[in-house]
């Protein structure tokens, strides 16, 4: 009975989102305040209903209701409670429900914090979000109902268990964060569509849109970083990025989202790049949808993709065509009406932000080509291909480093018509410091490496030094620092740290795959790993072995690693738990391969300098974004300007 309640709630939520779309869009079109007044209660009701559905499914998981197919497929009586809740988004159907719930949450937030916006505009934004909700819930109910029941005679005594790779704390929170980012771009998308429907896009619009977009981008950053961290220690791959199609699927909206944030800055400050900003907003959400499509339809071969189901694929494809096609049609009709009032100089801040946008979009394009070329090839009936990581590593770093140079120079430029000669001193000092410190880090601490990595470290230091000039200068002159400036500085520091860390990892990692017996060692530079012993272990729903590996530095014991190999009973699958010791400047990593007989095991032994800083950098970027999004002027000016717009509105009307 209870699971049916969840399904019923979901159906009602679908109807309410339809109402939300209809009254929001039609009400604004006809300027009917009574229609528009319905929108906010509809949003609240929608949120309550989808939350009910979520609660029902969690209840089914926690109480082992194996009559529900989804619970039976993804849970087990031996599964700890925490993972029984996280199992909700462990597979396709539940992930969609989570997606829908997060969208309901974002919509609720928009409804609550948009009271200061012009009513017709707010109503259109919520209306567009209603369309997205409607399509997504329809998709969930029609093709992937998480509440589907098993016939009584097929109800299993116990469930098939959650996929063991997903039984991990980082992965339990990775999907919700990632989805919060993905879905958050729906808000930027809705703001863009509403502006096009209104036929009006001014600097106030950019100011309303910015905090939402930045917040979504923060969640996406953390979500991607968590996924990458998880692949590092849980899959035993040992690395931070593998150009896996599903990683790429989340990276593309991030790159375009980053471009969008910067383009919005120009639109807010100078009223420029209007149609470009709109296009980026559409693109960022389209790529989020595409990401969902790529992962959920199973068309991509990856650890993440679940079962292939052509019906679902076709539905999402139709959804994609409707959303992206509709928005782009609206764009081609309305965007030419939006004129940018002023020009700008080739080395002004606007220009540098434009170059930065070009670099980011180009980077997204490179990822797009590499990820989708196999699909396009298949769709065209050509020979099956795959694109190796070499494609990405031979193109992406150059674009990224060009971007870093642009940031380091552009950060000193002024709005409208910058003269670089004004900041010649800063550029000079920055470059000298970058060269000295960068070369000291890469050559001094690590010795000769790949030339691209040395350049990377130098440029990373350059970004850090460049982004510190302005805040330090302001502090010295006892001027206050706004949250926007603090946030921007932290995010740019994050970029610098990220570039340094990745450059160092790429060049100075030592990795060996070896066969080791008890007492045997493998040397990794100054370090050596000694395989001591192997003990059997038993967990709540698995058994396995744990090795003891002693790390020696210059022959003296430094620490002990405990890599594990686990056999999960229910799915009879083998899992690798890496043994990792993080030091401030490097990670010591060991993972067990397999029993090679004769008392030896294959061992993956790695030493990765600065790898933790890659994730730390993502955290810094997200933190910076969060601080910038909380800048006071968004709230204060928003209220003031909404009042002003309302006044002029009435003045025009009379």
């Amino acid at each position, binding site marked *: 009975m209870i699971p049916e309640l969840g399904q019923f709630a979901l159906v009602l939520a679908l109807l309410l989102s339809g109402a939300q779309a209809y009254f929001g869009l039609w009400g604004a079109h006809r300027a009917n305040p009574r229609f528009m007044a319905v929108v906010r209660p509809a949003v609240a009701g929608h949120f309550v209903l989808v939350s009910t559905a979520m609660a029902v499914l969690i209840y089914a998981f926690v109480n082992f209701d194996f009559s529900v197919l989804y619970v039976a497929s993804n849970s087990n009586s031996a599964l700890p409670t925490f993972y029984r809740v996280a199992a909700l988004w462990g597979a396709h159907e539940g992930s969609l429900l989570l997606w829908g719930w997060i969208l309901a949450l974002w919509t609720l937030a928009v409804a609550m914090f948009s009271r200061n916006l012009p009513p017709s505009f707010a109503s259109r934004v919520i209306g567009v979000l209603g369309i997205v909700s409607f399509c997504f819930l329809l998709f969930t109910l029609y093709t992937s109902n998480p509440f589907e029941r098993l016939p009584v005679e097929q109800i299993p005594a116990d469930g098939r268990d959650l996929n063991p790779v997903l039984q991990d704390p980082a992965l339990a929170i990775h999907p919700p964060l990632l989805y919060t980012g993905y879905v958050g771009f729906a808000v930027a998308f809705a703001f863009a569509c509403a502006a096009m429907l209104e036929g009006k896009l001014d600097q106030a619009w950019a100011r309303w849109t910015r905090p939402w977009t930045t917040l979504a981008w923060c969640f996406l950053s953390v979500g991607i970083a968590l996924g990458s961290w998880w692949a590092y220690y849980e899959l*035993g791959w040992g690395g931070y990025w593998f150009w896996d199609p599903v990683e790429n699927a989340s990276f593309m909206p991030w790159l375009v989202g980053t471009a969008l944030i910067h383009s919005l800055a120009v639109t807010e400050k100078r009223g420029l790049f209007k149609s470009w900003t709109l296009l980026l907003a559409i693109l960022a959400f389209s790529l989020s949808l595409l990401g969902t499509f790529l992962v959920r339809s199973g068309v991509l071969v990856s650890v993440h993709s679940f079962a292939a189901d052509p019906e679902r694929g076709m539905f999402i494809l139709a959804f994609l065509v409707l959303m992206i096609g509709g928005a782009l049609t609206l764009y081609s009709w309305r965007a030419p009406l939006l004129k940018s009032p002023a020009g700008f100089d080739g080395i002004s801040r606007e220009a540098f932000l434009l170059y930065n946008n070009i670099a980011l979009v180009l980077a997204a394009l*490179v990822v797009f*080509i590499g990820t989708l070329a196999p699909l396009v090839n298949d769709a065209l009936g050509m020979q099956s291909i795959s694109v*190796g990581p*070499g494609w990405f590593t031979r193109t992406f770093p150059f674009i990224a480093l060009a971007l870093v140079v642009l940031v380091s120079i552009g950060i000193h430029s002024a709005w409208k018509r910058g003269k670089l000669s004004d900041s010649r001193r800063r550029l000079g000092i920055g470059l000298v410091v970058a060269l000295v410190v960068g070369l000291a880090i890469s050559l001094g601490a690590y010795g000769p490496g790949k030339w691209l990595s040395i350049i990377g470290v130098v440029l990373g230091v350059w970004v850090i030094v460049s982004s510190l000039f302005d805040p330090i200068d302001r502090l010295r002159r006892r001027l206050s620092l706004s949250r926007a400036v603090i946030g921007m500085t932290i995010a740019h520091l994050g970029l610098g740290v990220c570039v340094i860390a990745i450059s160092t990892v790429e060049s100075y990692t030592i990795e060996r795959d070896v066969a080791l017996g008890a007492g045997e060692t493998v040397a990794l530079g100054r370090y050596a790993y000694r395989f001591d012993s192997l003990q059997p272990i038993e967990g709540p729903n698995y058994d396995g072995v744990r090795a003891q590996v002693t790390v020696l530095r210059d022959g003296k014991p430094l620490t002990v690693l405990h890599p594990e190999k686990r056999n999960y009973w229910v799915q009879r699958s083998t899992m*690798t738990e890496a043994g990792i010791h993080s030091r401030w400047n490097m990670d010591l990593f060991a993972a067990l391969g*397999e029993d090679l007989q004769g*008392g030896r095991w294959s061992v993956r032994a790695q030493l990765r300098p600065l790898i933790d800083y890659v994730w730390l950098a993502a955290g810094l970027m997200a933190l910076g974004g969060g601080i910038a999004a909380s800048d006071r002027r968004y709230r204060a000016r928003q209220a003031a300007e909404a009042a002003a717009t309302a006044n002029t509105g009435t003045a025009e009307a009379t």
Partner: protein
Amino acid sequence: MMARHKRLLMVFGILAGVGLAAWLGTQAFRSNVMFFFDPTQIAAGEAPADKRFRLGGMVEKGSVQKTPGTLDIHFLVTDFKHTVPVSYSGILPDLFREGQGVVAHGRMRSGTFVADEILAKHDEKYMPPEVAKSLKDNPPPPNVATGT
């Protein structure tokens, strides 16, 4: 005149830059695209002799031979019509098993596929799509598929 000259130079420079980038991009793409072949295609001599490619199929039951105490492994990949011997030295993925799907990257050397990377995905029922497709296009005789 001077301004026009300058602008012409700039346009030419941009064009050259874009052209160079496009050429480098195409080269990078070409050298990193790997084609997929199944054992039947290899038996027919369709696979390139000098280029890396992807081999996909099922690991034939009872074919896995390991040299004890080392990372060396030999096995046969089959599409139930033809088989290809594969050699590999390294750590196998957790889900590498006899009788299950596998994709290997590498090149042919004197009749043996020397793999530098072995992929087997985290799903018991998983079969690489290319393998599933090539099995669907050329269904194996039923007694072989279910045998052993």
